[in-house]
């Protein structure tokens, strides 16, 4: 199954979404936009794709969804929600069956967006906050409600695109943006690849099948119970998968295949360095010596001893969604590369994309970085630099941090040991967990 997923990656990279590889992990050169999208699809994640107009934000998500979930492109197009202020709940989630409504019965006609496991929202930042919240709440649990009815998606993933701020856009407020697992940029592929795109164009026709699309539409529009509908949809997906294997030579995954993959991913352990490093990051992004924890509305004290750590450069406290995301995506990456354990290298690859949208930088931190030369948008660049800094600290102190954690374990198990102290916030967090006051 790994080969299947790698085959899907290769197929998209060579034929559909041409981009420059921009990250190296375990000796493999990969395109982050494509890689992260694939992992999002596999991991039932929520991805925010930013980029200039026309650089393949939506298209890349469509291709990944089509190949991972075996839906023809036409069906995916039909299920997309486009972001504009006049979107209504009825267009996004579902509407009453008008015929039955006139007879006094409340029966919900669910939108394709709600029914299908793959959900794409185009230009989510053009939606009003209430609608953004509605979508993110729904995707959080897979639970969609309208009138007095609800459906629960067993499998789902969300791809939302956003242009950079312009006068037509709202901001995605912090509580909402935190719900996204990852943020990536769909970059310009460079002059030479762009030329190729212009000359031959990505050929998405292999991902279409008019006959099957008609059948999909028929099933989706039928007034039958949700689970029955989805079983029929799954059969059509299998049929489309076979068609893909014949036409394009790319094998795809069934629903059970995807479930098995997720199960395999869940079983991949973290090695001790990855474990300790993640704890160090969490400490730096949540710690406040003076106020107990970071809070967005509380500033740093002048001359605080810890200004050298990231807690001094960010305004907000990192949420608990973050470690969940990191776990999911780093396991997914380790699985994708065929590694038995999640190690530092996997973490280093995914961390910037899980952090970029979650960190609210102080003005001074932004000012220091915004004029530096970079290959990423500022948020992702600053996240990468932050990860680099923390990694450097870990490389220097890693063994001591692991020792401190090991000693803490023994202390909690009753051994009479003294906790290891150090300067980094993680040591203070350990002391607090041991019930000791940090001086």
């Amino acid at each position, binding site marked *: 199954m790994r080969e299947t997923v790698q085959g899907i990656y290769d197929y998209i990279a060579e034929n559909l979404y041409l981009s420059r590889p921009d990250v190296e992990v375990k000796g493999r050169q990969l395109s982050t936009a494509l890689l992260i999208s694939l992992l999002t699809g596999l991991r039932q994640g929520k991805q925010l794709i930013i980029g200039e107009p026309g650089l393949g934000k939506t298209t890349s998500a469509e291709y990944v969804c089509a190949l991972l979930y075996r839906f023809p492109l036409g069906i995916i197009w039909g299920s997309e929600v486009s972001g504009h*202020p*006049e*979107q*209504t*709940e*009825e267009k996004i989630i579902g*509407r*009453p069956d*008008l015929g039955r*409504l006139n007879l006094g019965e409340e029966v919900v006609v669910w939108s394709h967006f709600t029914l299908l496991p793959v959900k794409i929202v185009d230009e989510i930042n053009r939606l*009003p906050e*209430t*609608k953004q919240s509605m979508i993110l709440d729904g995707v959080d649990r897979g639970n969609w409600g309208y*009138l007095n009815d609800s459906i629960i998606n067993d499998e789902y993933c969300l791809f939302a695109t956003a242009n950079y*701020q312009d*006068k037509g856009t709202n901001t995605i407020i912090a509580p909402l943006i935190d719900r996204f697992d990852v943020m990536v940029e769909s970059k310009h592929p460079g002059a030479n690849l762009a030329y190729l795109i212009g000359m031959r164009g990505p050929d998405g026709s292999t991902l279409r099948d008019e006959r099957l699309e008609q059948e999909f539409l028929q099933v989706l529009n039928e007034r039958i119970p949700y689970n029955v509908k989805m079983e029929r949809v799954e059969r059509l997906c299998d049929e489309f998968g076979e068609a893909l294997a014949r036409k394009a030579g790319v094998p795809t995954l069934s629903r059970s295949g995807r479930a098995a993959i997720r199960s395999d991913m869940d079983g991949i352990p973290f090695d001790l*360095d990855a474990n300790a490093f993640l704890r160090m990051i969490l400490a730096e992004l949540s710690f406040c010596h003076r106020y107990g924890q970071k809070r967005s509305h509380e500033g740093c004290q002048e001359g605080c001893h810890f200004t050298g750590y990231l807690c001094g450069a960010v305004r907000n406290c990192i949420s608990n969604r973050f470690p969940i995301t990191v776990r999911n995506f780093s396991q997914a990456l380790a699985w994708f590369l065929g590694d038995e354990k999640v*190690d*530092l*290298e996997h973490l*280093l690859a995914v961390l910037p994309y899980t952090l970029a949208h979650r960190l609210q930088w102080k*003005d*001074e931190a*932004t*000012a*220091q970085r*915004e*004029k*530096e*030369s970079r290959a990423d948008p500022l948020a992702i660049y600053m996240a990468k630099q932050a990860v*680099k800094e923390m*990694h*450097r600290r*870990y*490389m*220097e102190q*890693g*063994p001591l941090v692991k020792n401190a954690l090991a000693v803490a374990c023994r202390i909690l198990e009753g051994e009479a040991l003294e906790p290891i102290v150090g300067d980094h916030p993680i040591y203070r967090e350990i002391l607090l967990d041991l019930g000791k006051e940090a001086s």
Partner: protein
Amino acid sequence: MVERSDRGDTLRKVWNRVRERHLFPELPHPVLTDSEENVALEIKGKRISLSKDFVEEMSQFLATEEVLEALLDHAVSHYLYCPWDFSTHLKLYSEAKKVLKDRDMAQKATDYFMDVVSDTHCVSKHDSPLPKLYQHMTRSVMDEAVHALYQRIWGVDLGIRGYEEISRKLSRLPYLDRSRWTESIRKFAKVVQGLLEIEERFDGLNKPNPMGGHSLDQYSSEEIEQGLKDFAMDSATPVEFREMIQDFEEEILEATRPKETGMGLGPGRALDADILYYMKLADNYSLPIRKIPMKKSGSLYPHQHVPWEVGKPYQDIDPWTSFGKILPGITQTWKRREGEIYGAEEGTPDCMVLVDSSGSMTNPRQQLSYAVLGAACACDAYLRNEVRVAVYNFSDAKAGGRQLLPYSRQRAEVYRAICHYFGGGTKLLLEDIDSLQTDRVPDIFLITDMQITNLEVLIRYFNEHKNRVTAVHLGDNEHVQTFRRSMALRKHVSIYSVEKKEDIPRIVLGRIREYFGTVG
């Protein structure tokens, strides 16, 4: 011994192992090269190059894998631990030079100190074959002393006899305590001074260390820029900064791209260390770039649908999305919102900086002048927002003690104007200020101690003109009182008295932040 053709594979295997052991440092794959100098390895821009000849020579005594591993351990430890960054490198060198008073000796001492620190760090954390490599290497007098030290502090036998006193003294230094490196290198330099003098006599100072020297090539230009920034912050005076920079002028020029905005350089221009000092200092006090402001249009328009509830007004109900029904839960009503449009496109005015460089002010080239720093921060803030800055540097302007820079976007030119010091009387010429007025009224930043001979003239000028004026002055005196009294009712004039000079950048930036926030 492994054949050369297999050495590439061996290197790859060893590198993966070393990389994992050191927790995946961000370094590119090392290469085996023919080294021109007789050194084991070089690091240029993070790329580690290992000498084929050296590896072959050492492979007579050790397994090739061990040789490669030891060299890579050494290189990676340098990258990870010491000197950590360019600023630390400069600091260490500066401390060594204070003791040794000679550039070459100081560089040599610094190189050796950094080697001791990195190697000790590596050996203390990992099972490295470094000691085995050192056992078989050709050594100079200084190398022998250092290896004698290693014998003591690592507890290994490297085959060195003698050097008891030196190794004993050197073994007392806390090499693994970064916070005490500056103190440690001073003591290190003091102890090894005699040996360095011997090496100097035999022209050994120009020979690189067997494990490679530590030139600035190992740093990227961004690291050098950052390092200079940090070093400027740590230098007590411009003189201290200048002395260091002059020692490395060639290397800095070679290693960095000479761009006007970055390093204050232009074609054919040498490094002006004083200007660079203030540039780098000012970099530490930055305001983010102001975004183009939005403002409300003043009219409402339908923005989004919200569910209609009983009791809400009817007039905004959207019949289309309500399916023709007026039912709670079905009916949708429009929520209106005020539109947003762009604010004035050119919201940030130009800035005129008036800098007092009379005799009562600090000479910025001798001591850290917070007045110049404040002016620099103001200039940078405006330049970063793509507007122009003019500088009027005055002392006794009538006697020729003045420098007028018309509006410019060239950072280096602006800094050259700010950093100039006249040191004479204090009298400005209004016609100079007037010549800088434009149709779009510029902001004015005045940084002075207010002991201006023709202050009343200036006060009258500010009263008559609409420029937003921020006056930052040091200390308190009767002139200040006069100025405050006269400006008290002028809303467009703000006066800041600075108790601590260190407050100047913060005050300047705070004011600019307010300015930028209210424009549009």
